[in-house]
């Protein structure tokens, strides 16, 4: 297999992966119930969201673990690698079901 052939195969694989990811989230677009909770999703789950790379998914989880639950999606702008344009697209797929913050007897 020559180099261009390999690249074609790689691109086809990437395109297929993109289609799978997009179809996985097609139902979630626009409905709160089926959106992915950014506070409980795994890196793998986040990485399937259209527009999110595994590296960016990892950064989101890292941020969440450092700072605690994300209360508003706009807070994702604090995540390394996030930009406003991508964030607007992500809002179709993500939700922020946070822990309520109930306190102990203190």
């Amino acid at each position, binding site marked *: 297999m020559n180099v261009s052939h390999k690249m074609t195969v790689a691109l086809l694989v990437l395109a297929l992966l993109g289609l799978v990811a997009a179809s996985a989230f097609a139902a979630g677009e626009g409905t709160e119930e089926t959106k992915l909770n950014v506070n409980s999703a795994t890196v793998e789950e986040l990485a399937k969201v259209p527009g999110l790379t595994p590296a960016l998914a990892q950064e989101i989880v890292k941020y969440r673990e450092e*700072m605690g639950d994300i209360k508003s999606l706009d807070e994702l702008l604090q995540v390394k690698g996030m930009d406003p344009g991508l964030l607007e697209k992500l809002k179709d797929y993500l939700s922020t079901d946070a822990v309520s913050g109930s306190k102990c007897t203190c």
Partner: protein
Amino acid sequence: MCMQRFGRRDFLKFGLGLAGGAVASRAAPALALGQAPPRPEIDFDRVGDGNCQFCQVRCRLKVYVNRGRVVHVTGHPEDFWTGGSMCPKGLSLVELINSPERVLYPMQRVDGAWRRISYERALDLIVERLGRSKQDFPRAWGNRTVLFSPLWTSVECELASSLFMRAGGYPNILTPGETCISSASNTLALFLGSPNSTTTVDEVLNAETLVLWGANPVETLPPYAGWIEKARAKGVRVILLDCRVTNSSNLATRQLMPRPGSDGVLALGVIRHLLTTGQYDAGYVAAQVTGLESLKQAANDYTPEAVAQITRLAPGEVTDLADSLGQSRRTIVWLGGSLSRYTNGMQTLRSIIAIQGITNRLLGPGNGIITMEGGKPEGLKEFADQAVPGDIPEPQNMRRVQRTMEQGGVDVAFLNSSYRRYPDCNAVKAALSKVPLVVCRSFFMNEEAQLAQLLIPGAYGFESEGSQFGAERQVFWRDKIVEPPGEVVEDWRFYRDLGSRLAPDVYPGFESPRDLYRRFAAAVPSWRGLTLERLRGAHSGLIWPCQAQDEPERRGSLFREGRLPTPDGKLNLETSVLGTLAWSEPKGSPLAKEADPQYPLLFTQGKVVFHWQQSLTNYSRQLGQFCQGRVVYVHPETAKAGGIAEGEAVFIKTALGQLPAVARLTTGVLPGTLFTASHFSPLTPVEQNRAEPINTITPGYWDRASAQFNGFGCRLVKAG
């Protein structure tokens, strides 16, 4: 074996210590747990009804006073919840309130030295700085003032401070919950609709099985040992699940010792066994529980053998536990605070709730879940929102506040409690040192005072009237017993005076705690039946909620309508808030795949019976009798592998640093783990209680709701 134990000899020692103290003119007899208090042989001219301000039991006390000084305390014989017993921490209040080291006047640090300042001047300085902060940041001043809250000595202290923060537009009140068991209260709220225990402790007498899951009530809540003793006497089977042998072990019918951080796996193993053997209430589950299929899926891999491999229990122990729970007709699970102190705590607690759910043991007499540090009576925020209306920013958690402090974004911090309660507390200290004005509320010149520019000395509970609540949500009233000494100021007065100066048009003027309480109880429906007059006649308190004066008190199950107070009345085991039910190693665990091999031992820390948290009891010389500086408990096999002998000086090392300790060898901890007490203070004058804070070496790991203090990697090395 060498664990922290106490017995009659220790109490005699404590009694002798009290007799040798400055206040008792004749020796008071030593008290053992659960004993009714004898008539004290001391000189006194009056007796008041007070309460202990340490743990959540909040024991009612008889407080003996002579010439305006507290000279003795005993448990209150009419306190239903304690039976008149109390513990050494409560007894130490006599010494602490009369301590010669107590700060009695407001102090200001000038050029590195403390000098006395009037209370009025101190208030002026604070209000001036708050005003400047708002002037400098007119659109974003709210997050620039923060308040670290303590265990308040009364509801009115908490209300007065909340009203002050709302009146100023400051949303960030950092409660102890984030370092305590907010994981439990949040998980309970999420699945059961209430953050509280689902029943009262007296219901253990109606259970067939009581599971102390990671709980050590005999040591952490000693007066409640009586309830377990009574339960045992009635034939209740008491199963203790704890990675250590503790004083609670003595009351257990059986103890299993899963290794630290693995309780969630044990719970999933129990679920799998219950489901595969049909030992669950299929009818109840079909009608009242959702998410069974996902529960089956989550538990599917946790065969007894798989669970045994992770927990280090025997497979038979796992199935025996499951069979016991499957066959028990009435079961109460007592959740220990330790379960919340791992980053996998919320999923562990979710699994334990699921066990009670599928066996239909959440509702009815002798069933339920107890958590001594769970939720508290609600309504305080409701009142603050009503009394000081208006929008304020969304509150931030400690991690965000800490980052803001690090970046110089906080101008004023009210430090009412120990910063050493947080993991990686040196980082918190560094962040606080960037705040221009730290106002410390303390009894002593402690570590928090070192960070402050102003110190306003606080009052003990005996020195102020007010309402208070305990772990059963029982609310009681306490009259003032003695006057505060010097220019000591009660919390309610301090925050009222600040609020009135800062925002006189907004802050609700009130004269006294009773005035504030009356307004509060009248305004919040769930407190309306708890009138001041009614409380004053109830030594054991009255259980919240209570909507009307003629409403009878109802102990037992919180779920009075026979259903969960969730939106649909069901236990919904699936939730997008927590995502998929799955177990993982705690952060920093030496058993995780990415573990650092330098730190192969599992670290655990906790309270001991003679001490409370990192601050107050460290100043008691009487309690110092039972302490020998930092000790680390380690299994003989683990010690031998490291070449460490009994009594040898060692360092406990973690990824953050090291602390000196003396090694004690005991089979009461598991091989590969160690345990050390968490209470020490480096500045106390009591040498035996003096040590560097444990959280200087506790890495800053957090879960969704609270901090982690156990389960990360460490090692022991010889000090030489």
